[in-house]
């Protein structure tokens, strides 16, 4: 089938401001949107710039705004986007070129919530024990691929670039609720500050945007409750 791919393009090195480019692409309905972008880059316009790597939704490189919603280009099929598809860089991030955005600040925020296991006990000779229920408690957050789709979809980020954002909270949740971790209090203190969880207005854009099906808003709410109740027991 033939589709029109409309792409917001901008190369700050060469151009004063962004513009829209349109490409007519012959694609199979079950092709990925990423396949259409590749077709454009390889056969029509080599200057079109975007990130991609695994091409099947596990590396998180190709998050972009597709018909107004953040998606991974490798998980969206042509048959699902209509005969004319609009693609833009994600909002909330500085644009480097075309669909490539600057993720550095995103990763700095991620680091700020101490996204690593904190445990002061001596390591046992074998594994630490964890029951299946304890393991299940933080399962959702472990699926995160740090693509940034949730954070870039959040109106609170659009309004305040300093906000820690949903992806960081998801990854804090992953450790706060891990029975092996002893750093919950430190993280809850960080997330209780002004640019922590409370800037979340439960808009649910993040949940809609997550390509891994993580209930992002729900996890944020659990962290809010943990802060209010002073710990993870009642959250």
């Amino acid at each position, binding site marked *: 089938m033939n589709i029109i791919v409309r792409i917001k393009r901008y*190369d700050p090195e060469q151009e004063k401001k962004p513009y829209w480019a349109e490409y007519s692409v012959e694609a199979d309905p079950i092709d990925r949107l990423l396949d259409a972008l590749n077709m454009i880059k390889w056969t029509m316009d080599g200057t079109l710039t975007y990130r991609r790597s695994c091409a099947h939704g596990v*590396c998180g490189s190709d998050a972009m705004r597709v018909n107004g919603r953040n998606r991974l280009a490798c998980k969206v099929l042509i048959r699902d986007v209509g005969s004319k598809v609009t693609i833009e860089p994600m909002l909330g991030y500085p644009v480097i070129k075309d669909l490539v955005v600057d993720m550095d600040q995103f990763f700095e925020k991620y680091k700020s919530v101490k996204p690593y296991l904190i445990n002061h006990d001596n390591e046992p000779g074998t594994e630490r024990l*964890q029951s299946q229920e304890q393991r299940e408690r933080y*399962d959702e957050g472990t699926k995160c691929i740090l693509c940034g789709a949730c954070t870039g979809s959040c109106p609170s980020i659009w309004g305040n670039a300093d906000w820690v954002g949903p992806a960081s909270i998801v990854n804090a949740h992953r450790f706060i609720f891990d029975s092996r971790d002893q750093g919950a209090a430190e993280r809850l203190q960080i997330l209780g500050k002004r640019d922590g969880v409370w800037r979340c207005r439960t808009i649910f854009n993040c949940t809609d945007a997550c390509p891994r099906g993580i209930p992002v808003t729900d996890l944020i709410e659990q962290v809010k409750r943990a802060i209010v109740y002073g710990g993870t027991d009642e959250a």
Partner: protein
Amino acid sequence: MYHKFDVVIVGAGGAGLMAAMQLPNASVAVLTKVYPTRSHTGAAQGGVAAALGNQEEDHWKWHMYDTVKGGDYLVDQPAAEILSREAIDAVYELEHRGLPFNRTQDGRIDQRRFGGHTRNFGEGPVRRSCYAADRTGHMILQTMYQSAIKNQVRFFNEFLVLDLLINEDRACAVVAMEIRSGEIHTFHAKSILFATGGYGRAWRVTSNAFACMGDGMSIAYRRGVPLQDMEMYQFHPTGIYKVGVLLSEAARGEGGKVLNGQSEYFMARYMPTLKDLAPRDIVSRCIVQEIKEGRGVDGKDYVYLDLRHLGAKVITEKLPDITDFARNYLGVEPITEPVPIQPTAHYAMGGIPTDVDARVVVDAQWTPLPGFYAAGEVACVSVHGANRLGTNSLVDLIVFGRRAGKHMAKFIAENDHAPLPSEPEAFAREQVERLYSSTGGEAAARVRNEMQSEMMEHVFVERTDKGLRHALDSIAGLQEAYRNVQMQDKGKRFNTELVEAIELGFLLDCAEATIHGALARTESRGAHYRLDYEKRDDANWLKHTLAYKGTKTHDVRLDYKDVVLIDDPVFKPKERKY
């Protein structure tokens, strides 16, 4: 720009990050052409093998035996011993770093079956694969990246390495391009680790990421380092039809079976003991055989992976990602429908030759190139021989990534920086400048497509002298055509057309070495199956191929190195049956 570090690690996947963790007191730079969490380790699904014995009796020696036999005896046996022994401790290390493994009823790391892993030297399947749902590689990558943040490792993200500098017989620096600015940087170091992964993109149908372009192998090869056993390339039996995306062997570990167009679970006919859990080279060949004999689905070039009998609970809880892939890319519901699959280019058993401390060795006499290390898929230790067992790639990353880091810690304590050669950036700049100024009119995409078609046609599961010669001529022509590749994007800023063009050059080198090795090896062993030489030939071929880049563009010199065996009758090469 000039940088000076004790250690430079190229690649931020499992091996690179594991190595970085062993160097707490050194100045370390990790260079990656993506962001660390985009590395292809993250796509690994099924698990990481270690004889923990959490579910049933198991021993590292059984794991070693399976690794040696699975590799069709091209494995260096002392390396396989290290792999199997140290896997246990390395898996505990991952757990201590926070990896969320699935758990048994009593809270230990859960383990499941995988192809070629057996109890008591081949008696039957054993539960050895430690796993986190079907995203074990993702969890290893996340956990190691998180550990790296904790240890304040310095990353250079989106830097494409272009050259390795060797001076006074030592590796002394890498030259890289910062993708965002196009600027060239020299990283001067006492020791350098390549952990850059594989080259699956040389084939059209592949499970590999776009990033898997053979960078490290080619860069070393251009500087005179040989590539070992490149003809040993694994085709995973269960790639999604046409797309190539992997459906983990964990699906068969949990009880899934391959099914032909006549509704027959055909593996029982070929391999009566292990059936669908036979090693990958064998299952891939059986699929190709079924298709050739007209038992593909509707006479076409695919068969099915059948999970229906596992039930919705097992499928949803233990195989959620691959189920999602089948739904998303094929519109098939694995709970109620069988999934169309075909073999997909998956893993390089070969690569940069190293010893068991990940030191790169450059000839048949095991002469090291001081300061240069390689680990993970880019390296050939060799623990995988002619065919890697499922889950052993992740074991390789953590065991030999760790050994690389530990050995580098020692090396940098005992050695100073070797001086840089004159004009260190000249070769890298020349590559870039040639692409910017080329007016040859050739499209990189055309060259890449032709290479991928040729590799699918002639350098796939089955090979012949005639086909390989055809591929050789074709790649030689494409190497010439590559010199005329012309770009449309002349900008410096985030020029991905330039990145892709440079990577294409890497891929062509890897393809070339693969074909030369395959043509010369007149036997069938593991993943290298020759229709014109169907038997394994230990008298002549129990040896590793070393391919050196010749002086001309598409000239390759081959040498050979003995396989290292140990004196134990259990590991004596014998016919491989399952």
